[in-house]
C-alpha cells in the first residue's frame, strides 16, 4: 500500500472521494487487510473526536456480514436518484430598467382610475351629471306658477303653491317651503343614487360646481 493509497483512505473517512478515486479506495478496503485495518482506525479516531464511540472493544464484523450476504442475490436495480431539485430549463428573461417598471405601474394605475370613472359615470342615472337646477327642474316639472292640486288624494282644503326655477335655487312663494325644497335639493345631489366611492365623487363634483 503506497502513501497515496493511505491518503485515499483518509479522504474516504471524510467522504471526499468520487469517481476513480472512490473505486480505488473501495478496492483497497475490500482486498487489502492492512488497508481495512487502517481505515477502521481512521474511522475510530474520527468517531471518538465526534463523541460517537463509547469504547467497547469491538471486533470487525465486516467479514461475517460479507460472508452472510455472499449467498444473497446481487442487486441490479437502477439506482434511485436521491431527492434533487430537477434542473428545469429556464427561459431567457429580458430585464427592464427600474424606470420602465415605474412608468408602467403608473400607467396601469391611471388607466384603472380612468376605467373606474367611466364605469361609474355609465352606471349612474342621467340626472347625476346634470346641473342641480336642471335636475330639480326635471323632477318637479318646473312650470312657472304650476298649481299642484291634491284634491283627488284627500278631501282637504286645496293648497296652491307657486314654484319657479331661478338659477341654482327654487323660488317658492312661501319661504318655509322654499327652504325645505332647497335642502332636499342639496341632500338629493349629495346622496341620491350614491354608493361607496361614487358618493365621495359626487360630493366633490357638487362642491366644485357650487
Amino acid at each position, binding site marked *: 500500500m503506497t502513501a497515496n493509497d493511505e491518503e485515499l483512505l483518509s479522504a474516504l473517512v471524510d467522504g471526499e472521494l468520487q469517481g476513480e478515486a*472512490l473505486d480505488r479506495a*473501495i478496492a483497497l478496503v475490500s482486498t487489502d487487510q492492512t488497508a481495512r485495518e487502517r481505515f477502521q482506525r481512521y474511522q475510530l479516531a474520527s468517531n471518538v473526536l465526534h463523541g460517537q464511540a*463509547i469504547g467497547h472493544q469491538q471486533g470487525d*464484523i465486516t467479514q461475517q456480514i*460479507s460472508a*452472510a450476504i455472499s449467498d444473497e442475490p446481487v*442487486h441490479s436495480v437502477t439506482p*434511485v436518484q436521491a431527492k434533487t431539485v430537477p434542473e428545469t430549463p429556464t427561459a431567457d428573461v429580458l430585464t427592464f430598467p427600474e424606470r420602465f417598471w415605474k412608468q408602467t405601474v403608473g400607467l396601469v394605475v391611471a388607466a384603472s382610475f380612468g376605467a373606474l370613472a367611466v364605469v361609474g359615470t355609465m352606471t349612474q342615472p342621467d340626472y347625476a351629471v346634470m346641473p342641480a337646477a336642471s335636475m330639480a327642474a326635471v323632477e318637479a316639472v318646473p312650470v312657472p306658477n304650476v298649481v299642484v292640486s291634491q284634491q283627488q288624494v284627500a278631501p282637504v282644503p286645496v293648497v296652491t303653491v307657486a314654484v319657479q326655477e331661478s338659477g341654482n335655487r327654487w323660488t317658492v312663494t312661501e319661504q318655509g317651503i322654499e327652504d325645505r325644497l332647497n335642502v332636499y335639493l342639496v341632500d338629493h345631489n349629495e346622496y341620491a343614487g350614491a354608493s361607496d366611492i361614487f358618493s365621495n365623487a359626487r360630493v366633490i363634483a357638487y362642491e366644485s360646481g357650487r
Partner: protein
Amino acid sequence: MSVDQELVQRVQAGDKSAFDVLIMKYQQRIINVIIGFVHDPVEAQDVAQEAFIKAYRAIPNFRGDSAFYTWLYRIAINTSKNHLTARARRPPAMDVDATEATNIFDAPELKEFETPESNLVSDELEQAIHQAIDALQEDTATAIKLREFEGMSYEEISEAMECPIGTVRSRIFRAREAIEQKIQTIMGEGEQQ
C-alpha cells in the same frame, strides 16, 4: 452527491464491495446503539450483523430521502427490539432519535449502558488523540481541527487556510497518521492486558 449516496447506488447496481465500506464506516456506531438495548457487547455484534443483512436486502428500496445512517439506525433499532421480544425480554421504553444518536453525548439514554472499563478506554483514546493533535505542526493541527471539530469540507478548509485542496488532504492525512499511531499503541496495550 455524498459518498454514502454514491456507495448506496453502487450496492444497488450490484457492487457488494461498496457495502463493505458502509459496514466498516458505521459498524461501531450501530453496535453502540444496539448495546443500549441488549446490554451486552457480544450479543450486540450478533444483532448488528442481522441489522446489516436486513439493510442489504432492503437497500434496493432505499430512495435517499433520508441520510443512509438515519435509515440504517432505524433498522438497527427495530432489529434490537425484535431480538429482545423473540427472547421474551422487554425492549426498553426509551427510543433515541436518529439525529440525536449521531452524537452519543447527546443521547443520555445510551450513555447509561457504559461500563467503567468502556469509559476508561474511551477516555484514554480521546486523551491520546488530543495529545497527538497538540504535538502536530500548526498547519497540520489546524487542518484536522477544522475538519473534525468544525466539520468543514476540504474545499472550505482550503479557502480558510488559503492553500490547494491537495495540500489540505495531505495535512489531514499526516494528522491521521500521528493519531493512528497513538491509537495503535493504546489498542496494543489493551490487547496485552
